[in-house]
């Protein structure tokens, strides 16, 4: 360690001595490229140029309708996203870890439904649910309960339910169906994992450490979640606007009229679009051609299985885990939401 500190000076400190490798920044000098945000300069330049050169040409009714729908979804969902991220960042920053080990019952079979219900009061964006669950496991919570929480908290927390109520006015059963179906899936997956899961499938990460003051952790968690979730929300808005304007209505109604196909298509769309659960209700509501059951499938599958979550789970818990967890969750989510939709909607 002494030799190293003589060779490298300035901001290059090997602060984390648990790690066997030195920090990335030792390898190369910080490039001048990173000093100026060139990407951002390009964005502003495009905006200015576009305002004067392009704006008169962007006046076709189809493009304007597409843009209206796109901006409407983004703008409508944004306050819910911001509030949800703020609450979940607050929990990450301010709730001590010991709270969890004290609050859950000892018997794993009982801890699973309690952890699932805890998702109803503790908002967790999908982006946060995987790290939070891995943190729980690292602190000794039984993995099945942590997994139940991982699935439940993005799906049934109060922000999501309010957003669903706002997106489907006059349809309280949609909110109830989302809550019920998601909770059932989370608890079922937890119990199944308890019964059939093997510990060598799950790679429990080492204990994470927080850095900086609580307020700094809060602000950084918010920025991090907003940037991740915001990008995917925009993708969802783009897809919904395109489906609404470009795809001929007849195609949509043709798919929507075959019940099992509609449910499956919406479930797969939910996996592809990876929208944050606080915002997906608005995208689902915009798909007016589809039946309520198909929209319910979109809402139940989305917070539990999507490309972003799969990537996070592979990265945090390992491939062996994801290869079993993802198909199980997807199949259960589709089945339970189809059943709930048939019963309630």
């Amino acid at each position, binding site marked *: 360690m002494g030799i190293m500190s003589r060779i490298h*000076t*300035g*901001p290059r*400190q090997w602060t984390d001595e*648990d*790690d066997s490798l030195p*920090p*990335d920044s030792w390898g190369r000098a910080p490039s001048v490229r*990173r000093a100026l*945000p060139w990407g*951002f300069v390009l964005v502003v330049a*495009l905006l200015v140029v576009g305002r004067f050169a392009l704006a008169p040409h962007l006046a076709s*009714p189809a493009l*304007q*309708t597409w843009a*209206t*729908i*796109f*901006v*409407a*979804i983004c*703008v*409508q969902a*944004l*306050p819910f996203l*911001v509030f949800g991220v*703020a609450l979940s960042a607050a929990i*990450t920053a301010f709730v001590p870890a010991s709270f969890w080990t004290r609050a859950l019952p000892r018997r794993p079979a009982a801890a699973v439904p309690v952890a699932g219900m805890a998702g109803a009061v503790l908002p967790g964006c999908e982006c946060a649910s995987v*790290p939070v669950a*891995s943190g729980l496991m690292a602190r000794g919570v039984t993995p099945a309960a942590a997994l139940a929480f991982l699935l439940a908290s993005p799906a049934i927390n109060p922000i999501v339910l309010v957003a669903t109520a706002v997106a489907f006015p*006059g349809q309280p059963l949609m909110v109830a169906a989302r809550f019920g179906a998601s909770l059932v899936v989370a608890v079922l997956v937890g119990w199944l994992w308890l019964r059939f899961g093997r510990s060598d499938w799950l790679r429990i990460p080492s204990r*994470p*450490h*927080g*850095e900086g003051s609580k307020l*700094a*952790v809060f*602000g950084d968690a*918010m*920025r*991090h979640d*907003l*940037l*991740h979730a*915001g*990008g995917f929300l925009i*993708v969802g*808005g783009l897809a*919904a*606007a395109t489906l609404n*304007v470009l795809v001929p209505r007849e195609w949509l109604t043709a798919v929507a009229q075959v019940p099992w196909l509609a449910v499956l298509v919406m479930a797969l769309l939910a996996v592809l679009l990876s929208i944050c659960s606080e915002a997906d209700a*608005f995208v689902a*509501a*915009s798909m*007016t051609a589809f039946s309520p059951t198909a929209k319910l499938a979109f809402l139940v599958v989305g917070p539990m299985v999507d490309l*972003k979550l799969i*990537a*996070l789970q592979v*990265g*945090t818990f390992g491939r062996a885990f994801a290869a079993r967890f993802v198909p199980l969750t997807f199949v259960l989510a589709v089945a339970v939401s189809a059943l709930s939709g048939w019963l309630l909607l």
Partner: protein
Amino acid sequence: MNRLSQNLILVLLGGAVLRISAFSTTYLNYVKPGFRPFLIGAGAVLLVLGLTGLVQAWRAKEGAGDGHAPAGGPPAGGNGHDDPAGDGGGRGQGHGHGHGHGGPRIAWLMCLPVFAIFLIAPPALGSFAAARSDDPPPRRSQALTAFTPLDGKGPVDMKISEFIARAWDDEKKSLTGRTVRLTGFAVPSRKPGRWYLTRMQLACCAADAFPLKVLVKGVEAPPADTWVEVTGTWIPPTFEKMPNGAVHPELSATGLVEIDAPAEPYED
């Protein structure tokens, strides 16, 4: 993407949202009027987050220039928990602590609404959207079972939704022989000699809007998307049962006045 870009994106998006909600009424083209305070709040939060992040990044640069590592500020985009992926695709490694992987590339997409707002300035939904969906509007759950009788003389100002409800659901046929004045925009019809007076109604936001249409006969069709006030009387339907498909109540128009597009284009 480095910290500077991340925070600048937040500032840009927050600024755009504030521009359409706090400093103008453009937001009414996209969402319901009651949503304004939430939009302003969200825009302000984004702006504040971005600005404080910029200040932190600037301070960190100053600190690093003095020769010691920045204190208190966690590395770009990370906080103290596992965070492997987020870019479209994602990297499959777990990191034990958040060291700077920068922000996710997908966050650049958050500039798109800003582009849309400033370059395209999307207007309220008009005849293109109204012509696309010919589905009958979903029945509102709060159906008026008792319609108040229309007394008095002179034309009655009425919302299109009320006109449609009275046309189909009123057993006492309160519209018979009564002059009404309706406001909406013009949507052309494929058949000659008639056009639709339309207003869009929102379930939640502009993405799930559906059209409320009244078939107008008797005056010449104004250009599509023109906002007008039409005065006329209801033409009772000649069929006994409601036919399948989209049917619209008919109005025999006697007068037409062009008006400015209202600030609140959607009917509540």
